[in-house]
């Protein structure tokens, strides 16, 4: 029996033969890995980054089960009694229901208003026969995607500010009372979702448009021969042709439904609208980093992360049914 890769040389000394025989596969593996040392060296800085800033915090999650004390640190802080103390505190607090409702509603509205208008816009692009017009509108409509939430907030203020906003001036002109949209619990979510839709309308259309471009032109030809007009072609060919893409994107976004958009909500909200605007992430931020209740905030964050993981796995299962995969 010769080791893998060991030359069948008769001049082999007994010692070498012994060393090469049983552990040969392992050694061969290390030898193989050694050949790739410069590639591993390249990976190293990135791996260190992930270990320190992504995986070490996963260990830090244990503070959700401890009475975290800034002075003592993660390891030395005493365990909470009972271990689910902070989870219990959250689930039995009035915040729990409110945060879940807000997070879910804001996400669901964004999901709808971030899908249907984009789809319609993609259809418009697809139906536009004037190339330069389509290009221009595409270029213009993608731009808001690259503006920060602070800028979008500023733009929103210009329109909805109670004292000077354009919309309220219009309302006054009509003899109506001005509305404090950003401080009104009735209006806040609408404004939030509206701003989100405006920002990503064109950007969100790109992927649907790409799917539409991939539809076989012969199918349109065949439909035309059968006498189908433009609208019927849209209904019977374009939309079914991108059905899978629509469902896939929808399901994947469903998996991220607990992410209602920390940055946007943080930039847009204010104390008056906490009851409708506060989402899990903003609450975790305030409880953890403003009130310094690290353990409670970490417990809620962990609850969100675990639920999110389950949702993403479920979403991927579902998505596979429609022939798409996340990983």
């Amino acid at each position, binding site marked *: 029996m010769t080791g893998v890769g060991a030359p069948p040389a008769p001049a082999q000394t007994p010692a070498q033969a012994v060393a090469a025989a049983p552990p040969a596969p392992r050694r061969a593996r290390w030898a193989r890995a050694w050949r790739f040392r410069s*590639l591993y060296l390249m990976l190293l800085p990135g791996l260190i980054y992930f270990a320190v*800033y992504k995986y070490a915090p996963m260990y830090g999650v244990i*503070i959700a089960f401890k009475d975290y004390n800034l002075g003592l640190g993660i390891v030395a802080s005493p365990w909470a009694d009972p271990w689910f103390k902070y989870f219990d505190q959250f689930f039995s607090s009035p915040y729990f229901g409110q945060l879940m409702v807000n997070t879910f509603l804001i996400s669901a509205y964004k999901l709808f208003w971030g899908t249907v208008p984009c789809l319609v816009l993609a259809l418009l692009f697809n139906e536009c026969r*004037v190339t330069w017009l389509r290009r221009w509108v595409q270029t213009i409509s993608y731009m808001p995607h690259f503006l920060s939430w602070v800028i979008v907030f*500023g733009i929103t203020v210009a329109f909805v500010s109670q004292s000077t906003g354009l919309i309220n001036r219009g309302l006054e002109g009509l003899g109506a009372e001005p509305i404090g949209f950003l401080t009104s619990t009735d209006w806040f979510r609408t404004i939030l979702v509206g701003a989100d839709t405006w920002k990503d309308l064109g950007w969100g259309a790109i992927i649907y448009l790409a799917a539409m471009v991939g539809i076989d032109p012969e199918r349109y030809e065949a439909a035309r021969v059968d006498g189908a007009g433009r609208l019927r072609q849209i209904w019977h060919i374009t939309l079914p042709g991108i059905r899978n893409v629509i469902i896939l994107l929808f399901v994947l976004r469903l998996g991220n439904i607990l992410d209602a958009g920390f940055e946007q909500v943080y930039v847009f909200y204010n104390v008056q609208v906490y009851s409708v605007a506060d989402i899990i992430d903003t609450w975790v931020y305030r409880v953890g980093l403003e009130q310094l209740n690290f353990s409670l905030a970490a417990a809620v964050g962990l609850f969100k992360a675990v639920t999110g993981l389950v949702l993403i796995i479920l979403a991927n299962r579902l998505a596979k049914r429609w022939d798409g995969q996340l990983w």
Partner: protein
Amino acid sequence: MVTGREDRIVNGVVYALLLLVAVVSVFPLLFVLSASLTPYSEVLRNGGYVVLPSEFTLDAYRALLAEPAIPRALGVTVFITVVGTAINMVLTTLMAYPLSRRELPGRSAVLFMLLFTMMFSAGLIPTYLIVKATGLVDTIWAMIIPSAVGVFNVLIMKTFFDHLPQELIESARIDGAGEFRILVRIVLPLARPVMLTLGLFYAVGHWNEIFHAILYIRDQDLYPLQIVVRNIFLRSQSIENVDAAALPTVTMQMAAVVIAAVPMIVIYPFIQKHFQKGVLLGSVKS
């Protein structure tokens, strides 16, 4: 043709709606620009802001740039954009290239490790504690290091490398070139489009940076532009005492928005093609 009439109607509706989309996308920006140039007298006369005021003033910009906060914040943002993007690109490339080599032992384990962070994250608080433990809180690096590599971008670049002609790399290796040499001399020159796209994505992310600053920065001298602009909205009173009397708060606020938006809007027409390519590259992957 039977469908001639329907065709014309559909075309008409399509063009009208597309023009509407263009107006909806651009008008808010023009309105903000006009508001940022509106003097107090105009606001009083019209009872608010109008789309086209009859008088313009640059006072708001003068006042903002005279404040130390804005120029300093611009400096911070430029620094994190330049240095941050450089670090992002180096690390992303160094990860994407080995991961594109199918024969690399342990490749799938590393890929899984990356993907897992996309599905599960420890959350704000434990991440904050680590950032604090590594001494980054209240330093400019808190806005650079904790987001040094984007998993999605690594995957996009890896996919691009996957599709490069393998024979080129193979023959270079036979000629005795080391991996670093292959990466720099052969792979990178071929990867110009993806490098440009990802570099721009990273740069935009840094320019718009606010998230890490919200979490990790308490020192006002380190505030990036976005935070300072936001604070102008929150504490509009305090900044008004500069040159104030003749300047309404909202004019100042809008001028701040324009200062934060202008660099993006000016370079956007030149770079938008690359973004479009990037999103399609990304979607092929998922």
